[in-house]
């Protein structure tokens, strides 16, 4: 079938062919904050994709832009922050330019979200049952009784004992770990295709963190839900993610299969990041072995954003900005992997 067969077909929205396309495709995303002293660019030309059912880990220092990337996808950037460029596709159709009401219908239904703090994510004045039921009836065609049935099933599924009784309890009657389970149940209400989990365990007791991550992993595997898992914990990434994206100063430094990136990190920043993990499972691994700190948004250097801290920096890094360069299954934004440099070196 050639394009000539349907010369007059005008697609209502920008769509992509359906054949084995990624579930989520982010292209050249730019997020900016207009301020009195000029525009701050917090996300600068970020591209990545997530396949159906896949777990993509996102790591990076505090302020790297992980949360903003997640918020951009679900259309919940807080003003004055705004998407200043790029495109986001869900299942091949563009979602970043949808009117607010259309985007709202996608949130919770197609893309669920889990935030860091389970203690404050639930409205203290309503029973967890009410919050579950309202989410279910918002997105699914169910009456109150059916929604309540589903809510109880969901609570059971996330491992809350005696869900028939617990459904009428208020958030303050649950422990932190239990509350995060309720939050996960809320994110799963409408069986979304993708869940964005922004540091879902950081606020929890260390002993409970592993349980919650295991639960999230199991549920998403069972439901075929893809996950964008934002975390500081490389141990969690190693155990849970299929691929990992390393962010630095609003850009992606390296993205590739987890084993590959952990065993054979390519980007000097990733190498430092891996070197700073004493052992898997230790939380909040920081860049202990790389001197200096990530630049502030108003002082991001020319060329490669990492160049002031990079042990392998060379002249080109200070003037030209590297884009993601494919290296086998991985892609890395570092001039060391440019073919020209390889020839030269």
């Amino acid at each position, binding site marked *: 079938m050639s394009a000539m067969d349907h010369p007059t077909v005008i697609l209502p929205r920008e769509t992509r062919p359906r054949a084995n396309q990624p579930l989520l495709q982010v292209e050249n995303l730019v997020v900016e904050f207009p301020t009195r002293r000029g525009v701050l660019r917090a996300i600068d030309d970020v591209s990545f994709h997530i396949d159906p059912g896949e777990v993509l880990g996102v790591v990076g220092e505090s302020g790297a832009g992980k949360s903003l990337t997640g918020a951009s996808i679900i259309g919940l950037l807080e003003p004055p922050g705004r998407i200043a460029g790029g495109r986001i596709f869900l299942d091949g159709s563009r979602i970043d330019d949808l009117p607010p009401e259309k985007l*709202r219908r*996608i949130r919770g239904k197609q893309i669920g*979200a889990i935030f860091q703090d389970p203690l*404050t994510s*639930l409205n203290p004045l309503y029973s967890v049952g009410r919050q579950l039921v309202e*989410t279910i009836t*918002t997105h699914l065609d169910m009456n109150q009784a059916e929604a309540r049935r589903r809510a109880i099933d969901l609570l059971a599924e996330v491992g809350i004992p005696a869900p028939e009784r617990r459904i009428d309890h208020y958030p303050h009657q649950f422990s932190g770990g239990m509350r995060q389970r309720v939050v996960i149940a809320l994110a799963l209400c409408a069986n979304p295709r993708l869940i964005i989990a922004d540091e879902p365990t950081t606020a929890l007791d260390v002993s409970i963190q592993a349980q919650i991550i295991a639960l999230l992993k199991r549920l998403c595997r069972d439901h075929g839900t893809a996950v964008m898992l934002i975390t500081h914990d490389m141990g969690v990434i190693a155990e849970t993610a299929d691929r990992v994206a390393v962010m630095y100063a609003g850009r992606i430094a390296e993205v590739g299969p987890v084993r590959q990136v952990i065993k054979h990190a390519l980007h000097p920043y990733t190498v430092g990041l891996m070197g700073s993990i004493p052992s898997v499972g230790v939380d909040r691994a920081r860049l202990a072995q790389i001197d200096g700190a990530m630049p502030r948004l108003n002082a991001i250097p020319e060329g490669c954003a990492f160049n002031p801290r990079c042990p392998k920096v060379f002249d080109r890094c200070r003037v030209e900005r590297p884009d993601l360069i494919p290296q086998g299954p991985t892609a890395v934004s570092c001039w060391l992997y440019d073919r020209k440099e390889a020839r030269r070196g």
Partner: protein
Amino acid sequence: MAAYILRRLMQAVIVMLAVGFIAFGMFNFVGDPVTNFIGQDATPEDHERMRAALGLDQPFYVQYARFAANAAQGEFGTSYRLGMKVSAVLAERLPATLELVFAAAAISILVGVPLGVYTGIHRYGLLSRAFLTFSLVGISLPTFLIGILLILVFSVILGWLPSFGRGQVVPVGWWSTGYLTQSGLRSLILPAITLGLFQTTLIMRLVRAEMLEVLRTDYIKFARARGLTERAINFGHALKNTMVPVITIMGLQIGGLIAFAIITETVFQWPGMGLLFLQAIQYADVPVMSCYLILVAMMFVLINLAVDLLYYAVDPRLRADRGAVRGRQV
């Protein structure tokens, strides 16, 4: 629940005893009650006899106990000025004040809360800014000036509404209401607006501030992430959380309305307790003053009690002692 109410009631009784003590003290410090009864030219013997007849020769605590016992039964003696039983005088004036206060409270809540929600949601809207600027006027102008301005515009210049009095009232049992007659309702409008304006702007600003606060919370962000409608988020989730602190302030404000009513009643010659109280002060009519004091204090206490109960109904965390023990498990 029962323990909670009982605790509150105990506190209320203590507050009332304290206020009663002050009201009682007034008899001894504001003028000489005996002289008030028998006049300046009585002989010392007459004076002593009157003291004994009034029980003033007895020890202080006996007098206070008797005062409190009488007060509890609504017995405050006779007005020096009017020569009528104080309880009867105040009962006659009570409906006027309460109807005025109720109307003012209704205005301030029915106007203040929606305006607060609106200006909280549409933070940068033009209309919001207009409301906020306007509310500054309501907060900064003194009540009597607002009353006089309203009279000037709506009574004197436009001639639409009466400038004083309560209009025609009809008795409903021992209560006399102005709500059922046209002239009563028309007379109510200006004083109710005058009395309610300050509270309206206050409630509006309070609700707005709380709303802005609540809209920033994580559970509102999460509610957005769940894809709930704006309506459900603003009115289902945000407003209810906003009301928790606002209810307390509103309770206090309604108590304040009763006190502020003195000024409004004076400006509009509204035949309520406030006007009566002001006249009582001029004549050092101590029984009326002390009875007014106790009555107002009692209303404050009752309103606070109602607020506490409302709080209890709104916030499940206060109901914790019932469910949590059973519910708390990991």
